[in-house]
């Protein structure tokens, strides 16, 4: 088979629509007679509801309905547990999931209390102001560390404490090896990850058509099929009566796979109650409170090494902020726990965490999904060890990498997909050497840095490694059909949020069927087109859906060959698929177009022979037994102005290995975007809470997203270690850019400010925070 498209930087099929403003986003759906919704939300982090008075709101002109928890009757149910805890011996998990509307207690700012349905959004927002919620404020649990103390108020009244989960995973025997170590380094490390802040806020439009007994929903979700099935169950409808469309989505990054958001449960129900289309579009302020966050962990970590820098083991005990409820189970802290091990050979590992309920917005995965936290801990420990042992930072990583002969490598703990944490493949050292070479690591340290220092400038360099578990199961599927026009239709269940699925999936199909990419029409995220699958998350689109599409394309190709062989009276082995037709090798006049074959295979008269199916269509699935591990190295040179503590990124290098690459242009775009989000996380973005659980910077004026002047030019290169776990040999790439950037910032800034003898053990940083750290360090030195 010729691979004319796989691996090529093909321009995207979806772009013309997006560029002309013709692509459908949820807020573009406008239906006759449509009603609009605004929510009354909690102003308090923790409070008892004494009464809710909606009478004035109900009387306002233009208001059609107002609902509180009371009005929902039996429909009021806590949401489902999206991800149950993995099978880890001895774990504690206290299940608490969000409710559609708060009933007695308010557990975080922004929790919905009442819904206003009105003729316009403007009127609905006016009426939301009319609602009087009388509350008794309670002390808020805003601090992660004190949340488990005996004095802390308990958020969920039926629990003894704010413990959400307690998990221990162990390999080898850390306590034993600790006694034999030459070097022990122990630190307290803080990592805070912010919000996804997709440019498109969430939104949902529901249209219950009573005559057709059909509910159509447009939802900014990364998981339309589970939404369809879940809503059907909640609303007492057949799954085939519910159609969920995730059209073009303006960025996902994780929070849009959270389900079921209260709004997702309520808007379809309201449409059925009122028998009219209903729309709710989140505004940016709501997005800060009502869309899930990621946030912080506090790690007490220790690394044990030999004198020559070989890691003997790591012990890590951490607290994880779950927020007010934990519908996404343990995915984020388990990712932190597992990804800490990185590309390294760590024979002994003790990892224990407590996930803690706080009076803050729910925490679910956001691009990286806890991996940042783990990678930061391990990379910082290695940097500290390198410094203490006088070993070069590149060398200490080189000494501890798993080597190619150690794969598949079993880490002997359980990953977020419930499978053992086994790396399928990897080859880490070439990426390290390549990144070090590209950025000129040793030359910088030998020449550039001292020269700059002599000139009074503070330049620093960093280099860090990471792995990313990607492409986890359970499965995805696809149906591919050749139309009578000769065009090819591909339907798959996962939604798309900018990853270029319309193109990369088309490339896979085009190669199999001998058509051009622009003749392959991909449909994603419409449950009427395809209703099996889970969603777009965990860097799994290309791996899981990509391989399902590959399998379905192989199936269609077989049917094409069978029909063509009969029609052209030639052996299948002599047929070639090219240019939208099947040709007989060496007999150019003998050919049939795919469109003609599609017609022949679907006759109006005559017979479809036994053993044959009508049409050139095939459906297939792909379910990997476990995830595939991508990896990479980031390196960066910064200059720090020690007066203002501004950090300028001089160079940024990424060498990445995600196995076989379908479309390098799209892949690089994913890396650029991931790095930009990593830079935001490291130096710009921070959710600032006060002790009452109030978020103080809930606007894009105050929560700083990096702009074009903050993100540098990113130089990229690739290593290809194909995954043995799937036929295409691909690994996921969606999150890799974002994962190690915090660790890189800490190392490079520390290096730039080596005169100040800083230890940076926290993210996010900022000029203010660096200034504080330098002055704290100076004060400590003076005291001693």
């Amino acid at each position, binding site marked *: 088979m010729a691979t004319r498209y796989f691996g090529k930087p093909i*321009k995207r099929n979806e772009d013309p629509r997006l560029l002309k403003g013709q692509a459908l986003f949820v807020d573009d759906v406008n239906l006759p007679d449509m009603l609009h919704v605004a929510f009354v939300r909690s102003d308090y982090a923790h409070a008892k509801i004494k009464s809710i008075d909606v009478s004035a709101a109900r009387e306002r002109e233009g208001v059609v309905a107002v609902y509180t928890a009371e009005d929902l009757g039996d429909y009021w149910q806590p949401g489902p547990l999206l991800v149950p805890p993995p099978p880890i011996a001895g774990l504690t998990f206290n299940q608490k999931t969000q409710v559609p509307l708060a009933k007695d207690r308010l557990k975080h700012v922004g929790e919905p209390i009442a819904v206003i349905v009105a003729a316009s959004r403007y009127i609905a927002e006016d009426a939301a102001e009319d609602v009087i919620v009388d509350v008794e404020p309670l002390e808020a649990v805003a601090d992660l560390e004190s949340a488990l103390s005996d004095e802390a108020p308990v958020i969920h009244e039926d629990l003894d404490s704010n413990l959400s989960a307690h998990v221990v995973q162990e390999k080898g025997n850390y306590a034993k090896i600790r006694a034999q170590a030459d070097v022990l380094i122990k630190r307290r490390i803080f990592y805070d990850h912010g919000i996804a802040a997709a*440019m498109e806020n969430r939104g949902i439009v529901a249209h219950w058509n009573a005559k057709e007994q059909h509910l159509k929903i447009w939802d900014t979700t990364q998981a339309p099929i589970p939404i369809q099935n879940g809503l059907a169950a909640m609303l007492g409808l057949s799954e085939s009566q519910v159609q969920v469309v995730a059209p073009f989505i303006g960025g996902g990054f994780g929070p849009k796979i959270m389900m079921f958001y209260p709004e997702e449960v309520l808007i379809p129900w309201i449409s059925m109650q009122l028998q009219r289309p209903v729309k709710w579009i989140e505004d940016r302020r709501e997005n800060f409170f009502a869309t899930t966050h990621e946030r912080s962990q506090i790690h007490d970590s220790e690394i044990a090494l030999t004198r020559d820098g070989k890691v003997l083991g790591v012990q890590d005990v951490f607290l994880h902020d779950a927020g007010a409820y934990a519908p996404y189970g343990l995915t984020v802290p388990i990712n932190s726990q597992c990804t800490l091990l990185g590309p390294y050979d760590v024979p002994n590992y003790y990892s224990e965490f407590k996930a803690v309920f706080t009076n803050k917005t729910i925490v679910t995965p956001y691009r990286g999904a806890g991996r940042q936290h783990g990678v930061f801990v391990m990379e910082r420990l290695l940097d500290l060890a390198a410094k203490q042992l006088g070993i070069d930072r590149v060398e200490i990583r080189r000494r501890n990498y798993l080597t190619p002969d150690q794969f598949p490598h079993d880490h002997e703990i359980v990953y977020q997909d419930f499978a053992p944490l086994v790396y399928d493949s990897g080859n880490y050292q070439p990426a390290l050497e390549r990144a070090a070479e590209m950025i000129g690591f040793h030359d910088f340290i030998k020449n550039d840095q001292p020269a700059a220092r002599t000139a009074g400038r503070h330049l620093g360099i960093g280099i860090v490694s990471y792995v990313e578990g990607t492409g986890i199961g359970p499965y995805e599927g696809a149906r591919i059909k050749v139309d009578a026009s000769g065009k090819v239709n591909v339907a798959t269940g996962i939604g798309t949020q900018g990853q270029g699925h319309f193109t990369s999936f088309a490339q896979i199909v085009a190669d199999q069927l001998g058509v051009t990419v622009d003749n392959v029409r991909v449909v994603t995220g419409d449950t009427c087109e395809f209703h099996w699958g889970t969603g777009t998350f965990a860097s799994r689109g290309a791996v899981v859906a990509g391989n399902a599409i590959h399998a379905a394309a192989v199936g269609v190709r077989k049917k094409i060959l069978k029909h063509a062989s009969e029609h052209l009276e030639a052996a299948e082995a002599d047929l070639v698929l090219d240019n939208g037709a099947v040709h007989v090798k060496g007999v150019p006049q003998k050919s049939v177009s795919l469109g003609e074959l599609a017609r022949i295979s679907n006759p109006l008269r005559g017979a479809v022979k036994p053993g044959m199916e009508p049409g050139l269509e095939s459906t297939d699935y792909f379910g990997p037994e476990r995830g595939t591990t991508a990896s990479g190295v980031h390196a960066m040179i910064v200059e720090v102005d020690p007066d203002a503590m501004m950090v300028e990124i001089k160079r940024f290098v990424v060498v990445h290995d995600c196995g076989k690459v379908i479309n390098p242009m799209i892949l690089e775009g994913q890396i650029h975007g991931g*790095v930009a989000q990593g830079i935001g996380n490291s130096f710009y973005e921070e959710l600032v809470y006060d002790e009452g659980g109030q978020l103080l910077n809930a*606007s894009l004026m105050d929560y700083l997203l990096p702009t074009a002047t903050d993100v540098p030019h990113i130089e990229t290169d690739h290593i290809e270690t194909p995954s043995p776990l799937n036929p295409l040999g691909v690994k996921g790439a969606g999150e890799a850019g974002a994962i190690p950037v915090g660790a890189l910032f800490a190392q490079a800034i520390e290096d730039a400010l080596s005169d100040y003898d800083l230890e940076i053990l926290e993210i996010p940083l900022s000029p203010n925070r660096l200034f504080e750290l330098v002055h704290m360090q100076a004060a400590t030195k003076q005291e001693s």
Partner: protein
Amino acid sequence: MNTQIEISVKINGKQYSAAAEPRLLLSDFLRHELGLTGTHVGCEHGVCGACTVLLNGEAVRSCLMFAVQADGQDLLTVEGLAAANGDLHPLQAAFREAHALQCGFCTPGFLMSLLPFLQDKPDASEEEIRAALSGNLCRCTGYQNIVKAVKMLLEESNSDPA
């Protein structure tokens, strides 16, 4: 409050007349009253730039203007960029060529912000391009390929003998 004011505005060369409440944002007017949904709304407080349109040739944030303020004015939105036969505007084509968009939600705002900039600064440096882009937020691309698209377009038009 519910007083409606008749306004008349030229958008993408076409005259529109409609009634609008004085408080109706221009962005909502374009999107929901006129069905011009190519203009996107990302923050409604003037930071993200997704809603940028041209008002008499100048880039403005349609979420920070009332529809009534556009009465009698001349607007250009993203829908007015491509040629009548559907061919992409050179700036749109450069965005596609350079992979300067991923989810595409912020893209209309970037295109509209760039149009007057490219006219004013046909020989812009990368630093100037980045400064010009810094009023628009993109969460997908890291801006690199947007910068690339602008540079490509400028190089093309500067080397164009016409």
